[in-house]
Each structure stands twice: as structure tokens, then as C-alpha cells.
């Protein structure tokens, strides 16, 4: 594996310990280099959000993490809160889906950002506020000095999400983990926010882990992609390899069911069934029940990730036997 990875996750396992032990995420590995964006793609219950939170040490009580999470060479699994506290906000930061969940309603946006600055830097009030205003300006909030004196409820949804990104990036972290940062936003606002993340990482060399259910977003913005299903690895690798030539049928089905821009039929290729959620995966391959290529073997044995080519990994028993165009597997399926 590459030695320059900023974040290296190996064999990550997240287990819920209450009310009884259930593995929510099993054997997930990925890495992110400085300046790179990794998209973690999956549907509800795929385990993508808790994977992101596990990286940041932000899992709720009652969950146990094993495996390895190395950040800039330092092992974080089993690390104390004191270790994390040195990293949070300073070297790694979190952008949640719901901006209001991290913004205080009773403090101005500028004050909250300034506090974030002062929590990791020994600077004065005025210097902190200046840095806060600069961060708001950097994320494209017009008239930042004036808007810094406003409260979150006076911002629109897109502005609030910008403010949260400004807060996450105000201390120039090395890694930003963004959990569906644009899902609640309008498409034109979403496009601007994702462009903003691109600009920030190109300018500052920031690494981004973007959790999304939207394969199209991953296709356009990410360098690498990790597709998850029912808490397990499905497919991963450079985005142009994985999305142009998906080898796992689940990835192919997701791609096939995106509305094509120039097709004639009113019917879209569709995947049968519903996603299996993490914590209740069937025996064998979790996707087998919905997979047009599944055999008896698939329903009994769980596939291991195998390298298809040059860092492109897929977890599928039938990897070698699938048609060249895996999206064709879903061509005749409309329900």
C-alpha cells in the first residue's frame, strides 16, 4: 500500500455491544492521501456514517472498534480521548449533514468560529475573529465581516452548511470527514458546496472523506471511491476505474439505475428488492438476494475483497466470470 497515505484504515470492525453483540461494519479497509477525496458510497444501513465517525473517534457509547485506523502514522484504535482532543478541530474535522446540529442557536456565527480558533490556537479574541471572518470569506459567504455577527437562523440552509465548512476548516485541518454534507440541500446549492470542498483541498492540500449515497456525486468529485453494502466492502479503487468498469454487481446496479441522459425508454433499469441493513446481513454475500448473477455458492459464502487490477478491489465470487459490461446484468430488469 502507498506509504504517503494520511489516513490508513485496515480491517475496520465496528461492533454494537448492546443489547447484544452485532457487527455493524466488518473488515473495511481504505486509505486517503493528502489532497485526495475518498467517497464512501452506500445506501441507508450500509454502515458508511459509522465508518466515518469511527475514523474520528466520534462513535456513540456502546460501540467497539477493532482493526487499525492510522492517521499520519499514529494508531487511533484504542487511543484515549486526550489523543483525539489534540486532533479534533486542529488536524481532523467533521462536517455533518445537518448544519444546525453543530451550530449553537444562541451565539453568532462569528463567535462560534472564533471559539473554534481559540480552542486550538493561543491567539487573542480579535485575531481569532479575524481568522473566523477570513474563513467565512473563503467559503464564499458574501460580506463576511457583517455576516459573522448574524445568528445561524438568519442564514439560509446553503449558507449554514458553508458556515459549518468554514468552522471545520478554520484551523486548516489535514483531514475533513463530511457525512452527507449536501443531502438536505437543493441541487444548485449542492453543486456549489461540493465545488467549494474541491477548491479547499486543491488549495490547502486537505484530504476529504465524503460520505454520500449519490454515486453521481462521487463520480464527479472524488479521486477514489469505497462502495459499502450491509456494513461490508463491495468495491473500491480509483473512481474512474470503479465507475467506468464496475466489477461488483451492486455497484453496476447503482450505476445502471441512474437516469441516463439520452435514453429513449420511459422505463429505467432497476434493482429488485431492498437494501439489507447492517447488523442483519444474511449468510454469504449480503447482495446475493438481489443479484442477477448470484449462485448457490454466493448465498452460502461471504466473498473476500480481491484485487481486479491496480488498486481496484471488488468483493464478488463471480468477479472473473461476469460480463465485460456489468451494467448489462440489469438491462432487462425494471422492477
Amino acid at each position, binding site marked *: 500500500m502507498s506509504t504517503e497515505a494520511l489516513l490508513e484504515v485496515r480491517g475496520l470492525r465496528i461492533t454494537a455491544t448492546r443489547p447484544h453483540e452485532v457487527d455493524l461494519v466488518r473488515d473495511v479497509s481504505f486509505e486517503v492521501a493528502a*489532497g485526495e477525496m475518498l467517497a464512501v458510497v452506500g*445506501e*441507508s444501513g450500509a454502515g458508511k456514517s459509522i465508518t466515518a465517525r469511527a475514523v474520528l473517534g466520534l462513535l456513540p457509547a456502546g460501540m467497539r472498534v477493532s482493526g487499525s485506523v492510522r492517521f499520519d502514522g499514529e494508531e487511533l484504535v484504542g487511543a484515549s480521548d486526550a489523543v483525539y482532543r489534540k486532533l479534533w478541530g486542529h488536524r481532523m474535522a467533521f462536517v455533518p449533514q445537518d448544519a444546525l446540529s453543530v451550530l449553537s442557536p444562541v451565539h453568532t456565527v462569528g463567535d462560534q468560529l472564533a471559539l473554534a480558533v481559540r480552542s486550538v490556537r493561543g491567539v487573542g479574541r480579535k485575531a481569532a475573529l479575524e481568522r473566523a471572518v477570513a474563513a467565512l470569506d473563503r467559503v464564499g459567504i458574501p460580506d463576511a465581516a457583517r455576516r459573522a455577527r448574524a445568528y445561524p437562523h438568519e442564514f439560509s*440552509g446553503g449558507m449554514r452548511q458553508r458556515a459549518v465548512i468554514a468552522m471545520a476548516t478554520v484551523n486548516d485541518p489535514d483531514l475533513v470527514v463530511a457525512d452527507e454534507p449536501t443531502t438536505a440541500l*437543493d*441541487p*444548485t*446549492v*449542492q*453543486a456549489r458546496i*461540493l465545488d467549494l470542498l474541491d477548491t479547499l483541498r*486543491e488549495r490547502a492540500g486537505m484530504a476529504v472523506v465524503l460520505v454520500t*449515497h*449519490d*454515486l*453521481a*456525486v462521487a*463520480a*464527479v*468529485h472524488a*479521486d477514489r471511491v469505497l462502495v459499502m453494502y450491509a456494513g461490508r466492502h463491495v468495491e473500491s479503487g480509483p*473512481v*474512474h476505474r470503479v*465507475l*467506468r*468498469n*464496475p466489477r461488483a454487481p*451492486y455497484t453496476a*446496479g*447503482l*450505476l445502471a*439505475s*441512474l*437516469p*441516463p*441522459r*439520452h*435514453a429513449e*425508454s*420511459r*422505463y*429505467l*433499469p*432497476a*434493482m*429488485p428488492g*431492498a*437494501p439489507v441493513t447492517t447488523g442483519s446481513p444474511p449468510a454469504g454475500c449480503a447482495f446475493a438476494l*438481489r443479484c442477477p448473477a448470484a449462485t448457490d455458492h454466493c448465498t452460502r459464502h461471504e466473498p473476500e475483497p480481491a484485487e481486479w487490477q491496480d488498486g481496484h478491489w471488488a468483493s464478488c465470487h463471480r468477479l472473473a466470470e461476469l460480463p465485460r*459490461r*456489468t*451494467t448489462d446484468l440489469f438491462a432487462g430488469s*425494471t*422492477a
Partner: protein
Amino acid sequence: MTAPLLEVRDLVVRYPARGRRTPPVLAVDRISFTVDAGETLALVGESGSGKSSTAAAVLMLRKPEGGSVRFGGRELTTVEEPGLRTLRRGFQPVFQDPYGALSPRTTVFDAVAEPLRVQGRWDPATGPARVAELLDLVHLDRSVARRLPHELSGGQCQRVGIARALASEPRLLVLDEPVSALDPSMRAGVVNLFTELQDELGLAQLFICHDLTLVRHVAHRVAVLHRGRIVESGPARQVCDAPTHDYTRELLSSVPDPDRLTVKDGHGWRHASSRCELA
């Protein structure tokens, strides 16, 4: 030429001022459109564009401030309850949140049977068979009838909501973002269901959506709403393939297009690569 099934003329929806700080909001500003039997019209726009306000006014869930809404030749804006209740059988909604649209304590069977009971059309002898038939129509296994919403996936819940709407034997479905809350792998299936129901039952559909690429497939015609006004309308493929209004273009370009996969090359800059051969 026959009159359209739904005819909306100069519709105005205004939300009143709340106190002195929040001025009244003109959500829908004199818009007009028609939907024919067997046809799908998509209303496209962002939040605040007035599309859901339009839906609420068409469903007579919010009395419009001005304009006219004619359904099957009847003017709806002058009808009061309980007259509306019988008219509403003809136009039924499907909402965005599949779980929110169902009571958590009501089984699928009772949820689908409820419209029949409320409308006094429930016959204990034939009712259960009718419910089973409605579940068949939306491709739900009949065993789902005994379940509660939390035991179902989002896609299944949305199908229950559709079966419930169909129980009234409507001529028009008003679909307010019916797939945007669903997991991606289930969206296409539900979208196909709407197309199939239209082909089989000749339903008219008012499809409210923010995704123009999806609209291109499901709708015959599109009206693009911006700040309460229709800025562009026409045949779906024409509007989506060759938009003329700047706002429509912006909406279209904001949907990430995997066909134009941009790939970072070794020098760290981005260029559009050739078309994705698999998309």
C-alpha cells in the same frame, strides 16, 4: 377537442405575514398549466420555487388566494367541505416521506383499506380481496399486509402509500417528490411503477421533482418553476435536452453527470474525459 383533466389558471398562493418581522410570502405567482388524462406533467424547481405550494393548492389542502383550479370540468376553489371530500377521490397525493405518510401503528392492510372505509365503500366480503389486488398493483407481496411500517423498507412504504392513493380510484396522482427520500437502488423501481400505472390505468400525473434528469424519463411535459413563476415549459425531452432559460440550464448542470466523468490526472488538474462507455 376535449377539455384537460386538470386546468390551473393564474394560480396565486400567498402565505400571510407572521408578526412584523416576517412579511407575507408570495409562493405561487399567477401560474397556469394543464394536465390531460394519461399524461405526466412535471413541475421542477428548487425549495422555495413554489412547487409544493402548487401541489397543496391543487389538492385543495391550502385554499389559493386567487386563480382557478378545474378538475374534470369542476371548479374546485369555490367548493367547500364536505363537497370537496367526494371530489378528492379523483385526485390523490403521494408524499415525499414514505414513513411519515403512514401511521406507525396501522398495519399495511388497514392503511390501504382506510380510504375504502372512510368513503363508505368497504364491503367485508370483497374488501380484503380489493386490498390484495391493490398490493398486487404496486408489486408488493400480499404477506406485507400484516406488517407495520417500521418493518418495511422505504421503497415498500412508498408502494403502500401509492396503493392507498389508488384505493380511491383516482384519475390524477399528485406526486410530491415521491422518490427523493428513497435509497438510490429503489428509486428506479418506484419511478417505473408510476409509468406502469399510467400505461395500465391511464392515470394523469402531476410529478413534482427537483431532478431534471429523472423528469426527462417520467414526464411528457415539464414546467420549470422559479420564485413562484413558470420560467420555461414544454415537452420533457426538449426542455431537458435543449433548455432555453438560464435557470433551467443551471438546474440541469447542477446534477452531477457521470457521463462526463472528470478525472484527476497526474498533474493535479481536471479535464473532462471521454464519455463513460457504461453509463
